[in-house]
């Protein structure tokens, strides 16, 4: 285990020093890698560790972004505070969804449908609320400064997104080692058995969805202040929900490093195909490729890349 931590520490130091040699384009790519790995990690807390699939995580991204932005516009509140408020709001919504889903024992497909419906309702509400800019969305004025979480150039965003990712890794690793984490895995593997051993499955699933929603919303606020624009079709769409789940699935659900590995593997090819195909290909082609990647990922790596890495490299890093 020590070797693994050492290895990750070295990678972290390299990533800290990396912006020195990166041009703007590559910085952008790394920000995307960190950002999607972070969102994937948030989703992983709920789905990877408890087995309840959420296909509506874009809802929390949207709540975080819109709340932080609205608070900044109306009350001049710093997004650093606003993102926490947005997180709490998202937690509230997540707990409502969790209550409805878990209280009545809705599992599998039914829970998926509930998460999709809430995300769609959220998107439709954002589309129709004047105060959220309806379908045009909100445009954020550019006032650079640390307090406004707005910066010239990509460097600060690089470090913030890296910080978010490391934060999420620490949270999930701590969770995994804690009693709560063990309970969550027990719930995923066999809910009835966990319950019969006295685990309050409802409570722990609520913890998972609340934490997952909170952290996802933080990411939403970060994204809003990087792109300077929020629209329901960008931050609350099904497409974003799918983008979020792709990386942890390919990397390996229910593992700490899965979302990160997945993000490093597919973000760059995804960006390249998107950029290349939008120039030469027809609209939609890159999404068709995405669809096939999703299907073949399930066919060939039903548990993601991580089990494979564990088999090949595990002996080197983890000596028991």
């Amino acid at each position, binding site marked *: 285990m020590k070797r693994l931590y050492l290895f990750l520490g070295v990678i972290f130091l390299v990533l800290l020093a990396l912006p020195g040699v990166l041009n703007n384009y590559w910085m952008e790519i790394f920000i995307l890698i960190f950002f999607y790995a972070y969102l994937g990690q948030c989703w992983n807390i709920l*789905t990877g560790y408890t*087995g309840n*699939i959420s*296909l509506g995580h874009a809802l929390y991204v949207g709540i975080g972004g819109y709340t932080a932005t609205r608070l900044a516009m109306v009350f001049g509140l710093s997004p650093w505070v606003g993102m926490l408020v947005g997180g709490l709001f998202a937690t509230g919504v997540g707990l409502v969804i969790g209550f*409805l889903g878990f209280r*009545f024992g*809705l599992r*599998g*497909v*039914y829970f*998926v*449908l*509930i998460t*999709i*419906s*809430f995300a*769609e*309702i959220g998107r*439709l*509400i954002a*589309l*129709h609320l004047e105060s959220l800019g309806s379908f045009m969305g909100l445009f954020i004025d550019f006032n650079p400064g640390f307090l406004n979480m707005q910066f010239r150039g990509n460097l600060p965003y690089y470090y913030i997104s890296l910080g978010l990712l490391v934060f999420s890794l620490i949270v999930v690793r701590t969770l995994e080692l804690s009693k709560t984490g063990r309970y969550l895995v027990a719930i995923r593997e066999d809910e009835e058995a966990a319950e019969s051993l006295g685990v309050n499955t409802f409570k722990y699933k609520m913890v998972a969805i609340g934490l997952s929603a909170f952290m996802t919303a933080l990411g939403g606020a970060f994204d809003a202040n990087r792109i300077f624009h929020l629209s329901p079709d960008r931050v609350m769409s*099904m497409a974003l929900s*799918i983008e979020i*789940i792709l990386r942890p*699935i390919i990397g390996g*659900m229910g593992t700490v490093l899965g979302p990160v590995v997945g993000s490093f593997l597919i973000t760059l090819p995804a960006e390249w195909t998107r950029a290349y195909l939008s120039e030469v290909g*027809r*609209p*939609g*082609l890159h*999404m*068709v490729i*995405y*669809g*096939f*990647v*999703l*299907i073949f*990922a*399930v*066919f060939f790596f*039903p548990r993601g890349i991580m089990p494979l890495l564990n088999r090949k490299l595990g002996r080197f890093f983890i000596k028991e």
Partner: protein
Amino acid sequence: MNSDVVLQLALQGFLMGGVYGLIALGLSLIFGVMKVINFAHGEMMVFAMFLSITLLLWGGLDPYLSLVIVAAVMFGVGYGIQRVFVNRILELPEAMQVLVLVGLGIIFENGTLMIWGGSDFSPKTSLALSSFRWGPVTVDVPRLIAFILAIVITLMVLLFLKKTNIGKSIRAAADNRYGALIIGAHINRIYGICFGIGAACVGAAGALLVPLMPAKATMGAPYTMVSFVIVILGGMGSLIGALIGGLIIGVAESLSTVFLPSSMKQVVSFTIMIVILLFKPQGLFGGKG
């Protein structure tokens, strides 16, 4: 609120509900037999709409005639999808099944976008604007025809499942997969045919919708959602439930436009779905949850 307007909306919703029922029938059949939720359902319907439009623009074939061709093509597409993709995931955990079908949905939606582009298509059809008065309300002829044909097709599918040998083996496979295997049913073929019938149902529904509304490559997702809602309302796997659920949702969505902007009518169906999931997850006509 003027009662005639309400009546008019209710009638329109009811007629639309027949088509909704046909869409949901396909979903319910696929779920009832394979226990797989077809997340690509609405996207497949939009694909079928564009097939029908293409036949109309190139061959001058009216959607009511091309319906047969479109349904046949979609049967083949469905059969192929089942054998190539869905058959491999039947034993996987639900999470993985969902992902594969979502992937298929993405492929259908963006494949349609690639082939036909992203703009609206509303080709002129022969009966598009005709209507007649019936008491206090006006009846759109294409809507009425769509309703009647949808009901006829639904009944034909039900009869097919009740009376024919293939239909009986499909029901046997739905009841007990291993039992059907033991008595020598070709389970893979049955599953393929069943997915094919489900796809043919949405294919026919897509053709029926061509005269009623403009087609757009990216409009599939709401139809996937509405067919989930209907199937949950009627009961997963219940075919009569799909028809009645379709009529209920059609009327509910249409009436909701009295007090909501029409682009928010889905909020009503989602609310119905959440309420049903909470209090009667097995649906109105479902046997077990």
